[in-house]
């Protein structure tokens, strides 16, 4: 196997770039994500013909057209269902979903929770810009309460979803967050997704420079990001801030931020454990707290049997116990009788 891969000519970014003109608005965060994925895919050790990218509807859902892989640009919200059918039809494929916050969490909410619950071996990249872009600027299910948009001139009345809490609550076995502006981190997360067997859910903060410009400014601006990003590393203490001067501590049942030095040492700081689901919830829940940093990275990862593997097992067990089906025998099952002339 590895020999074949080694002697094969190396795939490059160019191999994954389709001949179609990219039609996102100039300055859109999607460009950076596309470019990084085109760069990372050749490094994943998967033959190009085994990639399938499925999407729904929305700006981000144009993604498959720009990837020179097999692709299916489908209908609003339904990518998880289509991708599930594809994966079950051919479990060998590496199936990726490109979706947005509206596509995944609003019209496609039902499919999202069920794909996570089933743990299909499919990777979900949710481009989260907290706005509806393609329909020209209405609030989305991740927009903040009171968001003023074309459809909510007095501010929205919807409390937003917390995507990672939703994913964890639905049984996600891989939940992570990254940002369009942190392409190196994004690339690492893509690689982690690829390694994970099961549904990977990635909340990718992405800037819509037309309808929601600067939504993640604090998180991406050089001046502030050291203070606002909590970059998670498995087995490492949760420190952040300029000169890594702050850390996260569990005080009773609350996560709090403390300054290292006089009162607290590095030993007081929580160590990240990707396999701890309770901790993942704690981290996810501080996301919208303005006084605490935003967790970035893999919040949770757990190995659990995948639906597709279990289906393959059931199929082969049935074939083993019943033998390969014979059509003539099947048609004649049950009580039969002969009529002779």
């Amino acid at each position, binding site marked *: 196997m590895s020999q074949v891969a080694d002697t094969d000519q190396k795939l490059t970014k160019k191999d994954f770039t*389709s001949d*179609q003109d990219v039609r996102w608005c100039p300055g859109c965060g999607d460009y950076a994500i596309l470019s990084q994925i085109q760069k990372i895919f050749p490094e994943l050790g998967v*033959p*190009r*013909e*085994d*990639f*399938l990218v*499925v999407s729904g*509807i929305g700006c981000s859902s144009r993604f*498959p*057209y720009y*990837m*020179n*892989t*097999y*692709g*299916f*640009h*489908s*209908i609003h919200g*339904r990518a*998880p*269902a*289509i*991708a*599930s*059918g*594809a994966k*079950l*039809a*051919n479990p*060998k*494929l590496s199936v990726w979903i490109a979706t947005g916050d509206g596509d995944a969490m609003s019209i496609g909410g*039902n*499919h999202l*929770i*069920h794909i996570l619950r089933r743990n299909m071996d499919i990777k979900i990249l949710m481009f989260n810009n907290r706005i509806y872009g393609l329909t020209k600027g209405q609030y989305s299910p991740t927009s903040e309460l009171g968001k003023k948009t074309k459809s909510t001139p007095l501010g929205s009345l919807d409390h937003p979803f917390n995507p990672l809490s939703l994913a964890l609550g639905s049984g996600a076995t891989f939940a992570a967050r990254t940002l369009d502006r942190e392409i190196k981190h994004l690339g690492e997360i893509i690689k982690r997704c690829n390694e994970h067997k099961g549904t990977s859910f990635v909340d990718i903060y992405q800037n819509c420079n037309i309808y929601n410009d600067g939504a993640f400014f604090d998180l991406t601006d050089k001046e502030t990001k050291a203070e606002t990003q909590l970059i998670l590393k498995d087995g490492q203490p949760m420190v952040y801030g300029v000169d890594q001067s702050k850390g996260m501590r569990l005080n009773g049942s609350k996560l709090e931020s403390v300054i290292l030095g006089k009162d607290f040492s590095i030993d007081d700081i929580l160590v990240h454990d990707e396999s701890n689901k309770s901790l993942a919830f704690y981290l996810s829940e501080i996301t919208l707290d303005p006084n605490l940093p935003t967790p970035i990275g893999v919040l949770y990862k757990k190995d659990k049997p995948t639906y597709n593997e279990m289906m393959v097992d*059931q*199929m082969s067990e*049935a*074939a083993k*116990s*019943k*033998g*390969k*089906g014979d*059509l*003539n025998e*099947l*048609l*004649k*099952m*049950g*009580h*039969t*009788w*002969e*009529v*002779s002339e």
Partner: protein
Amino acid sequence: MTTKQQKPKEEIDTVVIRFAGDSGDGMQLTGNQFTENTAIFGNDLTTLPDYPAEIRAPAGSLFGVSSFQLKFSKNEVHTPGDDPDVLVAMNPAGLKVHLQDLTKHGMLIINTANFTAKNLKLAEWEQNPLEDDTLNEYRVIKVDMNKMVFNALDDMGLSTKIMARSTNMFALGLLYWLYDRDMKSSVDHFKIKFKSKPEIIEANTRALKAGFYFGETIEAIKTTYSVPKAKFEKGTYRNIMGNQALALGLIAASQKSGINLFFGGYPITPASDILHYLSNYKHFGVKTFQAEDEIAGICSILGAAFCGQLGVTASSGPGIALKGEAMGLGVISELPIVIINVQRGGPSTGLPTKTEQSDLFQAMYGRNGEAPLAVIAAQSPSDCFFAAFEACKMALEYMTPVILLSDGYIANGSEPWKIPDSNKLPEIQLRKVDNPDNFAPYDHSNKKLSRPWAIPGTPGMEHRIGGLEKWDETGHVSYDSENHNHMVMLRQEKVDVIANSFKETEVYGKEGGELLVLGWGGTYGAIRSAVQRARVEGKSIAHIHLRNLNPFPRDLGEKLVKYEKVLIPELNLGQLNSMIRSKYLIDTESLNKVEGKPFTPSEIYSSINKIIKG
């Protein structure tokens, strides 16, 4: 078995029996057992189960009545019959609901045990019909079945509740005796069904025999009846229900084409059985996926079809409505999928357990944009096998979604089926490709106008499909107005050319004449019976039953104009009628019924009689 007491035996051609009781009385089971036995005996038959939408409707209530009708004969049987000759009423509600249908002087077998004051009140009988003259016109056999069964099971130490569950088998045994049958098929059935519960096998067998021997001993029944075997073509037969035949047809097409079947669906009455059946055939490479909703059901099969499998989903009207958008995606992405609609009474939730044909327009037009797809209809329980096979063949050969219409009546009804030789089923030709040279994903340059099927995983053929309009050949996204026009025409033509594969339309009766009865779907049996009767009387009449509703057969127009009048009976307000009038600009008469019940042959016959005098 003990020697049979000699009572005179009368030979008759045809019998219609109806079992009626509470939904907890096991009427469907009793009916199915009698059906199985009748099929093995060698009569032709058709059945009509009728049950409430509520799983456990309040005991004794009128709306909780469950019934099962069966017609069997030495002659060809096309329908479960008009009015029953024999009614088995297990409780006052069953009697109340069904007595009006029983033929004059018909036989009425009643379980008196359930005629309590409470049950009589629930069934809205003001007086006990067993005690006044309500039943004077019928041949009534009153039996306290519970008492008889309890006596028979006396030494078994079973609870009253368990014992009461066997009373339906007493009724079955009595009918076996009445129609001169062997009890073996049911005894065998108990042994398989209750394998792990020997006491239930024993209880049911004893109850069955008690009913049988009761027939021998009572005075009230003076004769037994025998219906001679029907003349069937040579072959191997089994009795089959519509949904079961449909599932087998799908598997047969999968086996024949070498393309694995992927079924994605969501439970809905009366289509769920298709999912149940298919889930047992994993060793045939059948994958079943119970999705989170109707939309996911169809979307999963689109994904599977893109990845080289035969995608099938099944639902009923409300579920089909939810699938509409995805069907459009199937049309524009030209993928081989089959969408089965086992129609039921609508609109909305409507009458979930009752039959109707009111989703023809939905199948034809229920999508946004110009989104034509092939529509075919099954006409009887056993025909569901062939209709399903044809639908799959069409989807795979033309690379198009196909809608297969069935209905609650044929889905749950059953009839004897001459089992086909799988080697003689038609071949299915695929347009699978794996050579990247000159590959164009939307290359339609072939007579069937099908798109090549290049499956993910094949090197060098990476391409994208989707819901945005595509350039012909390349499949790239296109907003070009001329190309859109071209593609809309192409998708229409793609459906139209399917008609090139149809055989000449079959006419029952003479080509040309006074009246043509044109039907589609599950009304076949009732129409054929009525037309048969009219032909015997020398009327100038013929019957065409449409398999293909989109596209219509090319010769249909010329056939229609050969008749002075065309009558179109449908279980809707005239949907085919409207399609025929608009396509062929001819005058037609529409016969409509929307009562959640199939046509009876006499309803169609009397309509024929109004048109053809004398």
